[in-house]
């Protein structure tokens, strides 16, 4: 079956522009996560959606970052007024239930963002 998909695969933007990154989770997965993979910081958690509950935004690095999940499926991560330090690979993951030790997170291929 289809795994987690993300688009675009690569995005180059100029400093100060806004960008939107998209994630399509595995069908039926109620939990969705965004992580960021950068050279200096490794893999960092950004935000987590579980069903219809309010998202856990505790990992968002600044108020320039926001995310939404429409209809419990597709998610969009938006970065406003991009800065060079936002350059990273943005990973999306989804899991079936989001609870319990046996729940596995499946990762997408990532979006590589470069801010010039």
């Amino acid at each position: 079956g289809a795994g987690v998909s993300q688009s675009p695969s690569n995005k180059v933007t100029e400093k100060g522009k806004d960008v939107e990154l998209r994630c399509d989770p595995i069908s039926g997965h109620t939990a969705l996560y965004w992580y960021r993979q950068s050279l200096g910081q490794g893999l960092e958690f950004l935000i987590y959606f579980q069903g219809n509950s309010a998202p856990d935004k505790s990992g968002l690095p600044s108020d320039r970052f926001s995310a939404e999940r429409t209809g419990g499926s597709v998610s969009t991560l938006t970065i406003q007024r991009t800065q060079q330090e936002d350059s990273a690979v943005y990973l999306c993951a989804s899991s079936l239930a989001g609870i319990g030790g046996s729940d596995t997170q499946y990762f997408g291929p990532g979006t590589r963002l470069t801010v010039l």
Partner: protein
Amino acid sequence: AQRVTQPEKLLSVFKGAPVELKCNYSYSGSPELFWYVQYSRQRLQLLLRHISRESIKGFTADLNKGETSFHLKKPFAQEEDSAMYYCALRTGAGNMLTFGGGTRLMVKP
């Protein structure tokens, strides 16, 4: 706050040699530990988790709460094991994963 430390950024071994990728964590509660692997040009994927106590591709990892470690071991490394390995921690406070910095394993022929 929780933290995961992988002290080695790069580990290079010869094919057939034993390999141990170190992982230490700090968390005051009951942790759930995972190893994720990313092969070249592939996506990040789960290798194994401590609660399953399983061996995947010849790799095992034992949670040592006394030493707060979850080292990944394989007795005989293969060239196809070359990849980036991440240790990850999930706490009871939320479902997100806290990752270590990763260790690149290179298995030489």
